[in-house]
């Protein structure tokens, strides 16, 4: 099966700083991949290159076999992307916001309406769907944000630390949703996180980067085997210890 996401020797330099170097991995439909790495490892930078927000200084990224660099609009159409430094329009209600972005993705009207109803239902947005986004709690905002990334029913979902700042209940809700997206709707999902337990529970494979370089790409067992450890946390520490 062709990969839904492919990073091919991605590299990014900011002036003298090599934020990402020679990072390659693939994510297939229905698969969940966790992106791990300490602070400043280059996770956000890598994901931004997948979304076409940053131009790689080396290598290339593909979404559904479309080069993000050469066919940005086609690639973005198939992509739902969320990072922690994106906020919602404060003066819009969740439904207005979803409608606005649905229109930007040119989702046909009747389909958009149905889609929004589904998302409002699935994310339990109904209780606050007429409130301005600025009045929502962190967890409510995050639910709306993720619903926003899915409004055009993308085949590929890229989430940067989707559970950061949420309580256990809210995180759990989002994790369950990620699982359903992959297992039931066959989406390819990659998400970065600092919570190793999320990765252990959810992910088919992990990508571990450190100082911009790929340390590991494979399933969890292979990560344990490679470091001779019994727990992912210990394997992780060993890989990023230099």
């Amino acid at each position, binding site marked *: 099966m062709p990969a839904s996401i492919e990073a091919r020797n991605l590299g990014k330099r*900011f*002036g003298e700083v090599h934020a990402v170097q020679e990072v390659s991995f693939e994510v297939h439909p229905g698969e969940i991949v966790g992106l791990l790495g300490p602070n400043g490892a280059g996770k956000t930078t890598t994901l*931004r290159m997948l*979304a*076409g*927000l*940053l*131009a790689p200084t080396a290598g290339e990224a593909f979404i559904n076999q479309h080069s993000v660099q050469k066919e*940005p*609009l*086609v690639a*973005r*159409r198939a*992509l739902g*992307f969320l*990072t922690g*430094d*994106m*906020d*919602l*329009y*404060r*003066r819009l209600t969740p439904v207005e916001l979803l409608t606005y*972005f649905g229109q*930007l*993705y*040119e989702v046909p009207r009747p389909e958009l309406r149905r889609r929004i109803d589904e998302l409002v239902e699935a994310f339990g947005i109904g209780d606050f769907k007429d409130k301005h986004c600025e009045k929502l709690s962190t967890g409510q905002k995050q639910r709306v944000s993720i619903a*926003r990334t899915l409004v055009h029913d993308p085949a590929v979902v890229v989430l940067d630390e989707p559970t950061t700042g949420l309580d256990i209940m809210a995180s759990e809700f989002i994790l369950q949703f990620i699982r359903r997206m992959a297992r039931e709707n066959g989406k390819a999902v990659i998400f970065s996180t600092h919570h190793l337990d999320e990765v252990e529970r959810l992910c088919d494979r992990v990508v571990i980067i450190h100082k911009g370089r790929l340390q590991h790409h494979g399933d969890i067992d292979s990560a344990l085997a490679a470091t001779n450890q019994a727990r992912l946390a210990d394997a992780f520490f060993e890989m990023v210890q230099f």
Partner: protein
Amino acid sequence: MRDKRTLYLVILLPFFLYPALFFLIGKVGQSQAGKMQQEKVTVLIDPALEQTPVPGLIGSDPSFVVKVQAFDSQALTEEKNTIGIRVDGNYAAGLAANESVILRITGDFSKDLLDGRKQSITGLLNKLNQSLLEERLQGVKLPPTFAQPLLIQEEDLAKPSQRIGKVLGTYAPMLLMLFIFTGCIYIAIDITAGEKERRTLQTLFTTPVNVREIIAGKFLAVACVGLASALMNLFSLVFAVLLQAKIMGGNVSAISLAVSAQGWVWMITLIVLSTVFLAALSMAVSLLANSYKESQSYVSPLMMLVLIPAVMAQMPGMELTMTTALVPVLNICLAIGAIFKGTFSLPAMVLVVFFALLYGLLALYLASHIFGNENVVTGEKVNWKLLRGRG
């Protein structure tokens, strides 16, 4: 756009501003003038002038209190509202010898009140001078016209419309630039630095919308508000000036602007072009900031940059030439001024429109270039090195 307050501020305010401003200035001016008339001023007249017509003459103006007494010039400045008059030598003897008798008016004329009164005293004394002159001429049997070989009279052929055109032509361009700029800059800040601060810009860039379209959308929003602000101001200003002319007692039916239909078309074209320029410039600059606060600090320098050429255009003798047509803002101000004054020529207009268009497009290019910068996309500080590297 979601902020209605900004809209009111930019569009509705100017509509009422000028008439209100003119009215207020008129009122304050009037009451100030009234106060100046009523205030009593003491005039100390040197006893050497007691037997002359001077005390009576000054006393004929009820706003003066005349006292004949010796005074010291230095002490005079200590007294409140006091002016002194003294004579050099002997008044009667001087006159009898056909000499010029020197009268000195003393006082602290840095004070507006005393300076004004000095002028009324001079006026009164001039009348006396005139009648003394006539007496002298009569004494030698000469007609009063003897002392005035030439009588100069002027006749202003300018129509009231031309006079109003001159006023508007001088001040309207600068005000227009100011209001286009203020109209643009606050919206520009809101949808660039403001969106960066609210962290909503990045999301937009992940959608399958072309960067060009995003820029175009934002630019149009900025330009529309700037243009609306400018047009509201133009109409309000013209209206206020006409109203003022009417209040001042002009013949209103005769008062119409000497701007032809063609002139209006050029003027609107120029306003649109300067809006393009200023909107793009506002966006380019506010994109460099990451927050409202930071962008606020760019407003004043930018405003100076816009206003200096606009003020230069007001200087007397400043005209549209090949050189001035090259300077952004200055060229448009001069052209709009010429339209109001009814002195514009077709080649000059074409030249200015050409350069204004050029500068507008350059500014637009600059703005979109900055907008395409990765750091703007990810909502971070614009990096000058990267900006140049990608140029």
